């Protein structure tokens, strides 16, 4: 059994981010919001302040840990919404074809024509800033690739012998879609989903950077970057650590996506058992 480096590294980075987010209350040195103390404002990284402190004297290390919660929640939940929408639309469109396929195609093309971040921005503008708005905005705007993939897979799987066999055996449409088509397209869908999580983490950062994300003072990596903007030359650690957190998480998710691509092939799966 050969473990792939990208899977191991990517998985570890992603797992690290999740553990950090979950255990933030125990790992953090201070409260990310309350423990402001102007006496130790803008301290550079040291043994006391691992990642330094910000202009209000809050511990960056602790804020980065708590920030993982927002970034990962947004990344995972919004991508889950995207995957469900994309698979439901694409799978049914590819399977049924006809007018439903036309509608889904038109919708997908529309989504692809508008950059999803712009679309998300528009939704945020209507809903106002906040975590829920972020989840909705990012969850509704990034399903087009999943949809395309699910539709293409359904189209090609539809003519497979086992799908026709299922029809002959009396399976209904829903059962065919769930038991015959979905499991056979899951691999690439999961891969796209993992990569999508990475881009959702980035989008969260961008929207928070623009002041549309989670409201200060609660930390998210994006809003921390946004606040650090003016001190980028005087206190670069304010930008470096949240930036690094984003970078490592997105990198981890991308490597993980690559690694999963190989694992989720049923042929290779059982060769290993």
């Amino acid at each position: 059994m050969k473990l792939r480096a990208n899977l191991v590294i990517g998985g570890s980075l992603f797992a690290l981010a999740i553990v950090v987010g979950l255990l933030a209350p125990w790992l953090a040195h201070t409260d990310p919001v309350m423990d402001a103390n102007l006496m130790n404002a803008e301290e550079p990284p040291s043994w006391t302040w691992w990642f330094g402190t910000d202009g209000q004297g809050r511990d960056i290390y602790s804020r980065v840990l708590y920030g993982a919660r927002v970034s990962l929640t947004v990344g995972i939940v919004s991508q889950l919404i995207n995957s469900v929408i994309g698979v439901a639309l694409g799978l049914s469109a590819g399977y049924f074809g006809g007018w439903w396929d036309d509608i889904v195609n038109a919708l997908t093309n529309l989504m692809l024509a508008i950059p999803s971040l712009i679309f998300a921005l528009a939704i945020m503008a209507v809903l106002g800033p906040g975590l829920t708005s972020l989840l909705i905005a990012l969850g509704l705007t990034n399903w087009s690739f999943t949809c395309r993939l699910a539709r293409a897979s359904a189209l090609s799987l539809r003519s497979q012998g086992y799908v026709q066999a299922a029809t002959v055996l009396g399976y209904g449409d829903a059962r065919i879609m769930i038991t015959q088509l979905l499991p056979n397209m899951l691999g690439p869908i999961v891969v796209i989903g993992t990569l999508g999580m990475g881009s959702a983490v980035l989008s969260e950062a961008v929207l928070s950077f623009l002041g549309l994300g989670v409201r200060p003072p609660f930390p998210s990596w994006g809003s921390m970057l946004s606040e650090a903007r003016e001190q980028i030359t005087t206190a670069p650690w304010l930008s470096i650590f949240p930036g690094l957190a984003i970078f490592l998480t997105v990198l981890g998710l991308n490597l993980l996506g690559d690694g999963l691509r190989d694992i989720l092939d049923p042929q290779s799966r059982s060769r290993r058992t």
Partner: protein
Amino acid sequence: MTGRPLLEVEDLRIDLDDGSRRVAAAEGVSFRIDRGETFGLVGESGCGKSITALALIGLLRPPLSIGGGVIRFEGQEIQHLSAARQRQLRGNRIAMIFQEPMTALNPVSPVGRQIAEMFVLHRGKSWREANQLAVEALASVRVPAPERRVKDYPHQLSGGMRQRVMIAIALACGPDLLIADEPTTALDVTVQAEIIELMRNLCAERGTAILMISHDLGLVANVCRRVAVMYAGRIVEERGSADIFRAPSHPYTQGLVDSLPRLGSRAALGRSRLKEIAGVVPAITRFPDGCRFNPRCTQATDICRTTAPQADGLEAGGFVRCHHHA
């Protein structure tokens, strides 16, 4: 139940809509299969065997459709049943197995689960019970160590094993009719014989009728009590298997029988070749007038080119569709 045939097909016509017009891909197709009977449908590639089978289970899809005729299952007309009612028949009362055991199983699902699904779908069993029944079903098709095999994925099984699994799935719900469309052409000869034997025995035990479809007259006649020979969308002869071999009536059937290799016959005849029927099957859109076999028939006369022959009943049972039949 006695006397009433299990399946009755009367004057079935299958239309092919090629955009501008409708042509009959099959017409005047009539036959009946009794309970527990074995019936064969033979003919060259493209003559309409598979579409006839699809019509029986309500699965013709555009551009093909049923253009006329009646299909009765246990006396009930089924050609106009709602999609939901037809689905209840499929896999449950009428099952079908295919040519391609390599592709007819879902590659990402363990075979046991695929068998179990039939019990859940048609018998309303819980997954727990269904999994138990799946092991029994796998045992009944003589798969060794079924309790371990149920966890295998299709690609871990040989072609013959997969076809056994297909048979287990098809017979899971104890159907009244099993349609086997070229069930063994993709397998090598020794496995072929085993599978056919298995299928025949299981069906005989359970009183399941078989509609066996093949281009191989020898194989079909071996398995089936009665055989219908199809040519260019029409059944040209229908007889008991033994009769068809002993005294084929239709010139096309005669050609088929002559082209069969017979045990010992080659040696006896020295270098003599197997006879082949000259010419090719006409395309659907270019069926000749009159008898469709006339361009290839050595006995064709003028009437054959103008008038389609009617089905003539034979004394020994069955019928033949030829103006000059033996």
